[in-house]
């Protein structure tokens, strides 16, 4: 069964283009041009995947994710943006998006990304993988004094690093090939990417926090 998708973007031309590209590959059940309309639509349709523009008036994709909160528990968010800016990408990921792709992605790759997000995996564009490698470079920050936070969240394992490097090298939507090269299964590759996503969302590395704060994510 193909995923039920809601498309949120304030550019009508872009929505029409994406609908045409995804036609027959996934089931686009509706689109919305504003944050308010998107929230209402998602609550009604309860889609599997929301394709979400990062930059929209009234707060953009970030605001949609925040306002949906628990109202569409099954919906997974895949961020779409023309922007390559690290703060935008990191902010939507930390808000809960399962992946990030740029708007120049081909229709087939986009459909593939939607399917993967629908299945619960994470999707990283090459550039996002590069950002993550950059952000997690160097020694982890000193663990905070209070709380028993998982220190592993602040650094990548060598294997995760390898997987990300392959994604950054352009194997972004070809986990099978990454798996072959690393001598592991495609499922394991997916698990590594999901683990990186979790770290990206929960880590307190200050680069990530800084990017998030720049988008006023943390109050």
């Amino acid at each position, binding site marked *: 069964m193909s995923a039920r998708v809601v498309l949120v973007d304030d550019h009508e031309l872009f929505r029409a283009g994406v609908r045409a590209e995804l036609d027959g590959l996934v089931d686009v059940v509706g689109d919305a041009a504003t944050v308010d309309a998107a929230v209402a639509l998602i609550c009604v349709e309860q889609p599997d995947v929301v394709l979400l523009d990062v930059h929209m008036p009234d707060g953009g994709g970030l605001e949609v994710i925040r306002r949906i909160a628990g109202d569409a528990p099954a919906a997974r968010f895949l961020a779409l943006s023309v922007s*390559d800016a690290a703060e935008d990408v990191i902010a939507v990921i930390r808000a809960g998006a399962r992946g990030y792709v740029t708007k*120049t992605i*081909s229709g087939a790759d986009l459909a593939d990304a939607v399917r993967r997000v629908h299945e619960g995996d994470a999707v990283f564009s*090459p*550039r996002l*993988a*590069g950002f993550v*490698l*950059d952000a997690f*470079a160097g020694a982890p920050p000193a663990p905070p004094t209070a709380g028993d936070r998982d220190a592993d969240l602040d650094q990548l394992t060598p294997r995760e690093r390898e997987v990300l*490097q392959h994604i*950054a*090298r*352009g*194997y972004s939507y070809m986990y099978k*090939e990454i798996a072959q090269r690393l001598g592991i299964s495609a499922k394991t590759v997916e698990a590594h990417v999901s683990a990186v996503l979790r770290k990206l969302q929960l880590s307190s590395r200050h680069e990530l926090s800084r990017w998030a704060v720049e988008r006023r994510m943390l109050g």
Partner: protein
Amino acid sequence: MISDMAATPQQRALTPLRELRRDPSNGMVAGVCAGLAKSLQIDPLLLRIAFGASTLASGVGFAVYGLAWILMPAEDEDVAPAVAAARTASQRRAAVEVGAGVGFLLVALLLAFRELGLPFSDVLTWPLVLVAAGGALIWRQSIDVPGRGARAVRGGAIAGSATATDLPDSESRPAVISRIGIGVTLVVAAALVFLQLTGALAAATDVALVAVVVAVALAVIFAPWFVRLLTSLSIERAQRIRSQERAEVAAHLHDSVLQTLALMQKRADDPRAVAALARRQERELRTWLSGAPARDEGEPRLAAALQAAAEEIEREHSVVVDVVAVGDAPLDRDGEALVAAAREAMLNAAKFAGDSAPVAVYAEANHERLHVFVRDRGPGFDPDAIPADRRGVRESIVGRMERHGGRAAIQASPGGGTEVELVLERDGGGDGA
């Protein structure tokens, strides 16, 4: 003075009852009050007020201060200097102080004469005293400067610490400034007192008063206009800046975006050309929006150089080249060779991979190595099947990397695209033979 601080605990240990010593580093003039206050353990301000008041009352405080200056050794002065080399410096210093002391003694004598009713005109006496004191202060300051190094040496000898000789500045700047300030004030005051006492100041005062009154009146009259003028000026400037910005944006859009759109309409039949034009315009606009300079003027760096190479290939071959860089490094000659090899790999990818998918360039720079991958999703080719006379891959990629102490590997499989891997070890990774 740090040398003072180093010497003080030692002295304290030697003499249970503290001697009277001036404390020039904390003093306003010569540190008499500060030194006295320290040994009496009271606030120096009280003593300063006492001295000031007694100076104003009868001039006695002034004379007493001068005497104290001469009689009290400074904190960093050894009472019996043992080091012969230091003696010249202390002598020079002593000469100045003796001079000042003699001056103050004269003042005291003058005061005494006056008390006895001997005829000295106030008109001359007080201005002279003030001028002498102020002049002495200023002179002392200018004489002190060359003597500094020697005094630091002496301080160091007392403290028994060699580091004290390294001190570049033996007196704190505020002390110096306040000393000069007081000197200047004294001289000016002397001039005023003289003028006042001779009656010359009265006329000058009238003129000055008139000038001040007129100035105040004018200020009251013109203040509103002036304020309004200032605000209107700043408003005008803001408007000018805004309109300049708008003109700049319009000019930029005209030169770049509108031109590109026109070109794209002309080339509508060639999707690759249109895509490349759009891509180039997008990149340029992004750079402009982010406020970054279009071309980095500084030293060449890996990420920027690869980006520039990618843009060039995009322009010439109507393909999309995505560059992802993790870390960055300055480029030496080997690094430049690496970029040149990467450019060649991009060129190959652009030529043979067609327009199936973007060419992916990934660069990673860390302390150990520079690592660049150039990958396309074209039909792929067998690297072993390249004829030896095709210099492209063999010479300009593999050969170039090897000549510069790096290595290149080409992985290609039919249907799976081609990936060129370039590695350059840093720190001793070949000297570019």
